[in-house]
């Protein structure tokens, strides 16, 4: 008996190592059930890069503003550019902006742990996706600075401002948008007997009809989505109707959500027609497009950099507004998937300097927006920047199409929705429901019912 007891205690001690491991399981590269598959993760580099180290030589004390972001070629590069511009336009501010590049998962895990643990080790400015905005604002009230009076928000896209606002207060500076477009291979469409004209302002039914012809005549599947996370399409379709997983008051809206039912129906039709290529990962999706096994994809502006990887396809690509849902009158040919914004931490020692830095560059400086549009393809939310010449520029890769102009045209149409605080939970519920639907275990109504109850269970409602 004594031996058994000793053994049980030893086992318990062994097991305790599980608990202490609870807080640091961040060594995982790409969990795909993140709130949204957005910018490609930049890997796990945490190389600190001092944007303007020469500021140290200025008079007075140089203050450092630390920024966390996650993509070396995108938002990290954009923030470094902002720091460079600020040091030129406001040298008297004498700040040193330190942009720390982490993986997106690490930004969230570190932020979540630091906030839950009482707030040490936090940056001064952090980039968050709009999908997780509600989660952080709900869970950690008072952690982020109220910026309502700091910017003239009428100059920013209203759906972006809505996404970062709560109870009438605005907590972030809107950065990039996920203005959704249908990117397609014109050469394959033409082989099937269609033209660029035919791809404008489609309905999903028309899109599927074209897709069948393309797949039949060229042997190439029409559209790609990630197998274990088809929510990009679902979210794009939902917001095209101004609907979401939650209603305006934050109540779960899945079982009776017409747009969700329609999106499940459309995705099933795509599968049955054999025009849907299910990629296994984000890399697989980009790979399928680059090696020509798929003819189109629905995604946000930042996805273009993945399409551009295939240099031999230069000139073959075009972009168009996304199709709408024919059975729903509310559905329009415009939507949004993802997008992110800059938050200032309330307890930052350099809060005022951080806000002044955001004001100095991100409000009023249209040249800066031009530069980041041109260099990083970053589609900002600052409306006055849409009138500048960069939106008339032709894109060689897209056969001379005015690609930026297309986004500038789509954006004002996007219908604001209340993302709420539980997008990750909702995405998982929908992913599970779709997987069961695909395996033939249930029908659309059953799948939606199941998703609603899973989500309600998760949220304790």
């Amino acid at each position, binding site marked *: 008996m004594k031996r*058994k007891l000793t053994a049980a205690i030893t086992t318990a001690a062994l097991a305790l190592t599980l608990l202490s491991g609870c807080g640091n399981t961040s060594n995982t590269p790409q969990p795909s059930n993140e709130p949204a598959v957005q910018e490609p993760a930049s890997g796990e580099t945490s190389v600190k890069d001092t944007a303007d180290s020469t500021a140290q030589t200025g008079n007075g004390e140089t203050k450092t503003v630390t920024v966390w972001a996650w993509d070396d070629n995108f938002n990290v590069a954009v923030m470094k550019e902002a720091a460079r511009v600020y040091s030129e336009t406001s040298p008297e501010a004498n700040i040193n902006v330190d942009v720390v590049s982490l993986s997106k998962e690490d930004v969230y895990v570190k932020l979540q742990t630091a906030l839950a643990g009482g707030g040490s080790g936090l940056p001064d400015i952090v980039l968050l996706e709009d999908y997780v905005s509600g989660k952080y604002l709900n869970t950690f009230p008072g952690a982020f600075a109220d910026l309502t009076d700091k910017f003239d928000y009428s100059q920013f896209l209203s759906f972006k401002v809505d996404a970062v606002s709560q109870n009438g207060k605005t907590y972030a500076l809107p950065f990039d948008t996920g203005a959704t477009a249908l990117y397609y291979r014109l050469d394959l469409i033409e082989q099937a007997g269609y033209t660029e004209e035919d791809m404008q302002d489609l309905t999903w039914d028309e899109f599927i009809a074209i897709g069948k012809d393309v797949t039949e005549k060229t042997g190439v599947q029409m559209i790609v989505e990630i197998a274990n996370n088809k929510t990009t399409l679902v979210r794009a379709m939902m917001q095209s109707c101004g609907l979401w997983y939650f209603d305006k008051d934050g109540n779960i809206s899945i079982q009776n959500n017409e747009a969700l039912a329609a999106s499940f129906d459309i995705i099933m039709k795509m599968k049955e027609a054999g025009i849907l290529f299910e990629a296994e990962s984000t890399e697989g999706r980009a790979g399928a497009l680059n090696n020509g096994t798929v003819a189109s994809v629905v995604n946000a502006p930042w996805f273009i950099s993945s399409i551009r990887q295939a240099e031999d396809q230069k000139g073959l690509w075009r972009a168009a507004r996304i199709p709408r849902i024919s059975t729903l009158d509310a559905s329009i040919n415009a939507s949004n998937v993802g997008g992110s914004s800059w938050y200032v931490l309330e307890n930052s020692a350099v809060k005022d300097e951080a806000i002044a830095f955001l004001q100095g560059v991100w409000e009023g400086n249209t040249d800066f927006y031009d530069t980041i549009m041109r260099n990083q393809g970053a589609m900002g939310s600052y409306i006055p920047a849409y009138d500048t010449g960069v939106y008339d520029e032709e894109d060689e890769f897209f056969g001379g199409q005015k690609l930026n102009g297309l986004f500038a045209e789509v954006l004002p149409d996007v219908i604001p929705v209340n993302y709420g605080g539980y997008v990750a939970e909702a995405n998982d519920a929908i992913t599970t429901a779709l997987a069961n639907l695909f395996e033939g275990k249930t029908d659309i109504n059953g799948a939606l019912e199941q998703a609603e109850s899973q989500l309600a*269970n998760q949220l304790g409602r």
Partner: protein
Amino acid sequence: MKHKKKAGPNYNRYGWAFIAAAFLLYLIFTIYPAVESLALAFQSLEGGKYVFVGLKNFKRMFGDAIFLQSLKNTFLYMIIQVPVMLMLALLLAVMLNSRFLKWKGMFRTSIFLPCVTSLVAYSILFKMMFSLDGIVNQFLMHLGILEQPYQFLQNSVWARAVIIIAMLWRWTGYNVIFYLSALQNIPKETFEAARVDGANAAQTLFRVTIPQLKPIVLLTAIMSTNGTLQLFDETMNITQGGPANSTLTVSHYIYNQSFVYAPNFGYASAISYMVVFLMIILAIIQFSVAGKEG
């Protein structure tokens, strides 16, 4: 007694000093977090502050369909993978210990080699092997078994099978080493006696070798059970818990509750303690099954 005196009056103090550093680290990084997380299990994050909620977190588990699914998955891995792995390991160990085997060093090294690979790296390799254009699909198509590539990781049964196959590859060698060292400690006389008595290979294995390996079998069984209950890296990297949560493990769910979903560290801690509780129960069961005669 005399010898002990020779060690000096500070003998005990030195002893404590030597273990102090390690114990301090153990205290800070294992005991303290464990105690804190026990406290956390009874709390919930509401409006940015932790509030005491009593047993709410524990009650919630029983109605949480995803948690129950993850528990079911974890036990499924355990029930299938642990026995298969241990039997395989024992078989390999006995073969490696054979007097007739040449190139022992090479075989031992290659069987142990998977254990030194990184969990994430090998998981990603298995994901690639079982992907649409992976080597498994190509091999099966080459043999004519499949006509079109099959999405192994999108089928709930196959996805679980892939996880189990991956774990077998990674962990069998680890257990072989334990058995091998134990086999070498078995007195040779017992084998000789068996041979003299005319026992065949199978009889020797089951009547002589395995009974003498019992303590080690028990040790590896408990370690593997522990390891399986904590399974995380494999499902996270190979399937992300999909399709439809069919490969989700409890640890993976704890991670989701902490870092993917709206942070719920209290609930996550409660689940962790549930796992601890299950491990203790399982260990007691294993001891009582194995310890009947001993």
